[in-house]
């Protein structure tokens, strides 16, 4: 029996270890090694921090890096602000069929690829697009207006794309808050605002954190939305990685960029977890 259990453990453990070692661990170690490689001649390399030095000394790289971080945080905050009332409505106000219908409606955009969603916003926002035309018909502007290719358009695209990943965890945690507890809050003299602050939001914290982590990750690592909706000046850090890897074929610098992105995302996720006293297992698992 013991031997059998050991065999079972081994059989179940091996796919997991193969997956994590071959596809996650080794590639990241390789990427780290490549990023620490400096090219000193054709096919000749030495180990050093030169690529990271390049990253910190070139203003365009650093600026794009910080801009991407700040805009991703902003997109996360906006998504949370928009999604919270909606999730609360679905979880606590709507009943029965209406609730399931609204929840399903929230999921619909997710079933369509991000490309299609972004394409939709392009049709809406561009100079010849629907909104521009509508504004002209309503005589609010004289000529066509270009709403695409700026930071605001990126923001709309990011928020739209990530909305679902905020709504689902929020609805799930809010649903688990019994009506009785909210009623008790009112019964003991609480007002809408104090019940929200002291009861609803603390209860929803795991959902808020896990939603924020996912949305932040998706925004930070997004390539499609900034490329399609952003203008010439609104560069995203992933575009830099892409161009180093695919266009310039400078893998050493690209790997360093990748590592910087990984460090940034891990730091912010870690900080978010620490700040709210949550753990990765609890929020994601």
């Amino acid at each position, binding site marked *: 029996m013991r031997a059998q259990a050991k065999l079972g453990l081994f059989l179940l453990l091996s796919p997991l270890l193969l997956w994590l070692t071959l596809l996650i661990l080794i590639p990241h170690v390789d990427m780290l090694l490549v990023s620490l490689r400096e090219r000193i001649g054709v096919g000749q390399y030495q180990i050093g921090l030169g690529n990271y030095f390049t990253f910190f000394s070139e203003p365009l790289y650093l600026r794009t890096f910080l801009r991407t971080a700040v805009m991703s945080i902003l997109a996360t905050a906006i998504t949370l602000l928009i999604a919270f009332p909606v999730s609360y409505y679905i979880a606590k106000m709507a009943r029965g069929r209406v609730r399931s219908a609204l929840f399903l409606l929230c999921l619909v955009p997710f079933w369509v690829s991000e490309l299609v969603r972004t394409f939709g916003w392009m049709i809406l926002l561009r100079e010849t697009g629907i909104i521009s035309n509508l504004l002209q018909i309503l005589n609010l502007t004289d000529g066509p207006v270009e709403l695409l290719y700026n930071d605001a358009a990126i923001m709309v695209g990011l928020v739209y794309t990530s909305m679902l990943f905020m709504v689902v965890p929020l609805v799930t945690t809010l649903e688990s808050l*019994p009506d009785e507890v909210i*009623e008790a809050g009112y*019964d003991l*003299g609480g007002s809408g605002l104090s019940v929200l602050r002291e009861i609803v939001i603390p209860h929803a914290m795991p959902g808020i954190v896990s939603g924020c982590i996912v949305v932040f990750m998706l925004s930070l690592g997004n390539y499609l939305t900034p490329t399609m909706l952003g203008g010439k000046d609104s560069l995203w850090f992933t575009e830099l990685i892409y161009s180093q890897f695919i266009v310039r074929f400078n893998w050493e610098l690209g790997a360093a960029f990748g590592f910087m992105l990984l460090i940034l995302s891990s730091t912010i996720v870690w900080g978010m977890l620490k700040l709210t006293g949550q753990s990765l297992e609890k929020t994601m698992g």
Partner: protein
Amino acid sequence: MTPDLECLNLVKRFGDTTAVDTVSFDVPRGSFFSILGPSGCGKTTIMRMIAGFLEPTSGDIQIRGRSVLNTPPNKRPVNMVFQHLALFPMMTIAENIGYGLRRKGMPRDEIARKVDEALERIGLPGIGNRKVDELSGGQKQRVAIARCMVLEPDVLLLDEPLGALDLKLRERMKVELKALQAAFDTTFIYITHDQSEALVMSDQIAVMNNGRFEQIGSGQDLYYRPASAFVAGFVGDTNRWSGQVTRIEGDEMEIRTDSGLLLRGASHGRPLSAGDSAQIFVRPEAIRIAHDTEELSHFDNRMTGRVASLLFNGAASRIIVQDPDGREEIEVNLPQSGEFAGLKRGAEVHIGWSGAQGNCFAAGVR
């Protein structure tokens, strides 16, 4: 003195169904009032209307003489102990108890003092920093009550708070709740479907069925002088037969059950006449058991039957007696003297009871 709570012709309809149908009652200051009824009878609806979570279709609710219909729940001078207690899991015990005081804007040190006082009062000093899930069921119960009592409400509502506890603890909490009520000297309104909870704790009990109050009275009133067939059947254990009234003379009467048994009973002033269909209720402890018929000669209902089964349950042991023709089964309490401890299944026994113990109600009224 104005009663603490008065409900006047309270009605609540949900669509076509009437959950609460013209209910009126008042609860005097400082008393323990229970609403007892089967699930779905509308008792929770009444409770939620008093707390302010439901709006009555018509009627009025007054607390200390003032209507609270237009007062939102967070402003009403009533507090509620919820069915699952609804302690806030994200807060400590002290934060839970202090929640309402914080809402009133009380200074911090005063809240701390009041919380400590309340913890002292419920016999759990020093647990203020614990988390809700570190407490036992009984402790949670007491914290939930303390959380309301620090606000000094005019009326405390309790919505079956013992339902989730195990049997032993429930028995203990009954006594404890009654003691807490006496200590706080506050009006308690308690809803339950468990008659023993209601009988043990309450000064007054309202028995509710199908949205109406069947009877309001003390535990003794309900038990010994039920006003309706429903109350007679719902409160306490009882033998019940339906049949037809064959003869009526003043308060005394005779009824023939559907299976043909002829029983004497009493109408206790209820309007019944010969030929009516009726129900008769006889409590198992009202029936005497004897070795020979002589001992039972003063009873007007007498019968000889066989023991169909023995239900041993300590002091509450019973037997089921089958009448000679095997038409009916009658539950009878065994005397606690142990006189019939040797009774076997199939043995012949004589039973008898006085007609005044057979409570008759016209059928169909339920």
